[in-house]
């Protein structure tokens, strides 16, 4: 079947099998390898992307379901050549070690701040509770999102 999915504002049209999972469409068809493919069972959350601005685990959604919808991946966080404050936060606060969970964590972090610009530590931990960091670097992931919350306003002015 032919599907068109808008990814980071660019329509991507492909002829696919209906059974293709969205994570594979993003990585293999659109060539956007920033989204990682992990557990396959909606547990680890590294494949988290946005569909119509809502975070979803793209290993548990068919690409066909996303046809006609807006998908945002980690590659879409950067604006006008400048990294998103959440991305900067992960750099500033050593928010990643191996980096495997990072794209999903950043997509959830950005979504959380869009809906709750000043979350408590507990709210951040709850927001990322469906995502696993096997380096167990949660403390720095939380700090990175906090850094982004504190530095979002400044960054918007600069942009």
């Amino acid at each position, binding site marked *: 079947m032919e599907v068109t999915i808008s990814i980071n504002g660019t329509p991507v049209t492909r002829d696919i*099998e*209906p059974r293709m*999972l969205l994570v*594979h469409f993003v990585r293999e068809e659109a060539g956007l390898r920033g989204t990682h493919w992990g557990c*396959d*069972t909606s547990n680890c959350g590294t494949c988290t992307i946005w569909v119509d601005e809502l*975070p979803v685990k793209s290993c548990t959604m068919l690409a066909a*379901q996303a046809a006609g919808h807006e998908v945002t991946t980690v590659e879409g966080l950067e604006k006008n050549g400048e990294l998103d404050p959440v991305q900067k936060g992960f750099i500033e606060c050593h928010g990643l070690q191996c980096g495997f969970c990072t794209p999903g964590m950043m997509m959830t972090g950005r979504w959380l701040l869009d809906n709750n610009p000043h979350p408590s530590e507990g709210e951040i931990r709850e927001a990322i*509770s469906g*995502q696993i960091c096997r380096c167990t670097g949660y403390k720095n992931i939380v700090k990175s999102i906090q850094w982004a919350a504190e530095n979002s306003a400044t960054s918007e002015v600069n942009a």
Partner: protein
Amino acid sequence: MQTPAPVDYVRATSVANALALLEEHGEEARLLAGGHSLLPMMKLRLARPEILIDIQALDELRGIRVEGDELVIGALTTHAEILESPVLAEHYAIFREAERVIADPIVRNKGTMGGSMCQADPSEDLSAVGAALKGTVVIRGAQGPRTVAIRELHEGPYETKVEDGEILVEARFPIRPGAGSAYEKVERRVGDWPVCSSGAYVVLSGGVVSDCGIGLTAVGAPHFCAPAAEEFLIGKAPSEENLAAAAQLAADACQPQPDQRGPADYKKHLAQELTHRALRRAVAACQGA
């Protein structure tokens, strides 16, 4: 790599269209809503439909509203929407308390009420909530709508009264002024299925329990409920002693299976303790504590 077997895909344009598609394709068709139960089952080949009928776009099946003296939740309403609903929270704290511990925030963005109910997993939390509140579901087929009590919906694990060619369109819950409710769950880690969950509502009148409901999941409670415990409490003072005795009756009716989440005696212990805690907090909520 887990991926579903080859399957066809079609989008329904209305409930009537979905029913026509179900009729056309028969038992090889499955409805696809959020997909968070069905797609994992398909990856494991536990489900192998030949065609998926995507109903995600059917807004007529979405949303939460008050209709007369009932709360109505459309089948496509997501767990996240139930969690965040002010009107549900106003009438029954049990919805928010249960949803907060169903899966995780990202999964709750996609998983739907109707999908959860129709999956009929014996450890599913919303089934316990629905059984506790003595709710009903409306099922639509070619012959029109019919109503089934949630306590009669489940035929067994992964089996419901929803037939081929039918759609569960909404769930309805009676509003009970003054009711207090609560939900208790023990899970091994955040987002996991419960080892045991128990939920309850209580209405007090003249210092005694005039109405109550108890729902349990994951511990082999027949139809997710505990009618003997409910009958015991009616007309009695909500004392610690009576609540504990009711909780014991609820646990006695459970037949939990030992598995990697724990042995049967531990699960029975949880059924008693969690039912007691849920009743205690439901009573406290009634008393305005």
